[in-house]
């Protein structure tokens, strides 16, 4: 896997994504996130990593 994102960049991503979700609205927010994931997966470019990410995201959903 490539180098991971610097924490300060991750923070900026957090803020921008929250703003984008608010702009999309509750109804379309899932679609926005799905498109985002597809785009990110494409750019990550590593099969094992993106499949593992689905597992990570699916864990602990009931907590």
């Amino acid at each position, binding site marked *: 896997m490539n180098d991971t994102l610097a924490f300060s960049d991750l*923070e900026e991503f*957090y*803020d921008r994504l*929250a703003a984008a*979700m*608010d702009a999309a609205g509750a109804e379309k927010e899932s679609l926005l996130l799905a498109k985002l994931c597809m785009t990110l997966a494409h750019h990550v470019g590593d099969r094992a990593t993106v499949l593992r990410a689905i597992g990570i995201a699916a*864990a*602990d959903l009931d*907590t």
Partner: protein
Amino acid sequence: MRPAGRGALDSLYFRYPRFAFRRPPELDGAATRHPVIVAGAGPVGLATALELARQDTACVVLDRKDTVSDGSRAICISRHSFETLQQLGVAERFEQKALGWTHGRCHYREHMIYRLTMPHSDDERFFPMYNLQQQYIEQFLIGRAAELPELIDLRWQSEVVGVECDDNQVAVAVATPEGRYTLRGEYLVAADGAASTVRKALGLKLAGENLPGRYVIADVQMQHDFPTERRSFFESAANPHSTVLVHRQPDDIWRVDWQLEPDEDAEIAVEEDNVRRRVQAILDMLGHTGPWELEWWSIYTANTLSLDDYRHGRVLFAGDAARIVPIFGVRGLNNGFDDAVNAAWKLACVLRGEAGEGLLASFTPERRGATLDVFRNAGRSSRFMTPPSRGFALLRKAVLQLSLTQEFTRRFADPRQVVPYTYADSPLTGFPGRDREFAAGVAAGAAAVNCRLGARGYLLDHLGRGFTGLYFSADGEVPAALAGLPGRIGAGLRLLAVARGPGAGTGAHVLVDEQGAAFARYGAGDGTFYLLRPDRHVAARWLTADADEIAAAIAIALGGPA
């Protein structure tokens, strides 16, 4: 607020002093023009007075109250503030009472997801953070002020009711139990808090945002066995939809903060029965089974509000009078101390004739710059602690849940505690090209760091009242051109020689860096020079000292030609 049946100052652990009104000469016709008037005897006003006194400048402090803060309020004091308190001559009494701490724990549901560890080492005299109730903070500062009666005239029960300012002086209308008088001064420092009378009298307004999210803060007294750490709880059993914070204070007092849910009515939330119920739920969650007593509580809303200009002619605004910052990261009090010191040393230099308009003009860019930096940091903290929208709430939930198994999101729970602001862009910070020649050390504009010096204590113990030059060398011998600088400069300059080992240089000004810590922390080689301002910030630095440039840097740090 206090429990039913107890008065506003009826505390379980603190005996409130009552300060008498003393009839000032102005009520009997005296027309003294004082160098500085300070409005407000809270921590910021008192720190202003003590720094002015350290600079041998007299002031009159006015406060309408006859005692100290009615509640514990601002309880976290940073290391940088402690280094300031040391310069003000009060660190020892603070250390005896305050609880130092370095760590914190952040929990999501019942899991600990982040361990806060603040930078700390043997080179530090002070802990990264201390907890102490605001009443004690004020009491200790007042105690020090009382030791300096020739320099600090502390006037209680003296309310500022009007301010007039022209090019030559400031006139403050003061209301007292024995009538009104006009107090005249060269300068006024407004440290009179969030509801500043001075600000209103001059028709100035704070601008900015009121953030969503309200917290109830409550103090309880109990025997509770847990170290002094910051504890935060997201979605705990005690407050499933929001956040709880827990801090230990001296005298077996514990601060518990809980966030109200968006639809909760604030007035109902602060009713005593409801406060008791929430406190009990939080103590249950903490596993505290013993008795407890309710001491005091208050409600708090996060704001990012600031004046556009912290200086209005001969009036400088400090602390909450200048700006209101969110509670997260403990920046209100600590930045207030920095405002106080910044205003005070500059006013003292101007009143001594060592500096002019340019030095006072630097107050706003430096201190408002610090505020805007706080807003950036505290804004992030606030968006995490009290998510302002559905998007932020969902993302917080996502990073908290990921933190159960993933390391990479855990830092989002870091409280981003206050760090001193770097005056990199200040008009007082000189020779940026020389600064860039360093690969390490303390950047120009940043606050000086401490170092252990063995028998000689710590580096910051030795700084002067005015500017300090740190000259790094092998043997402590100072070249003639540098040794002549204090005589060349009108403003006070203390030269300290930091030596790798004992050698040719002798005298009290030679500090032997036994462990090499000072050379390392300052990124210094033989011949390196740091110029420190009276407030311990680096005015400029040189890998290899240059006496003419140092003299020029002092002139720049004093705001240009007087």
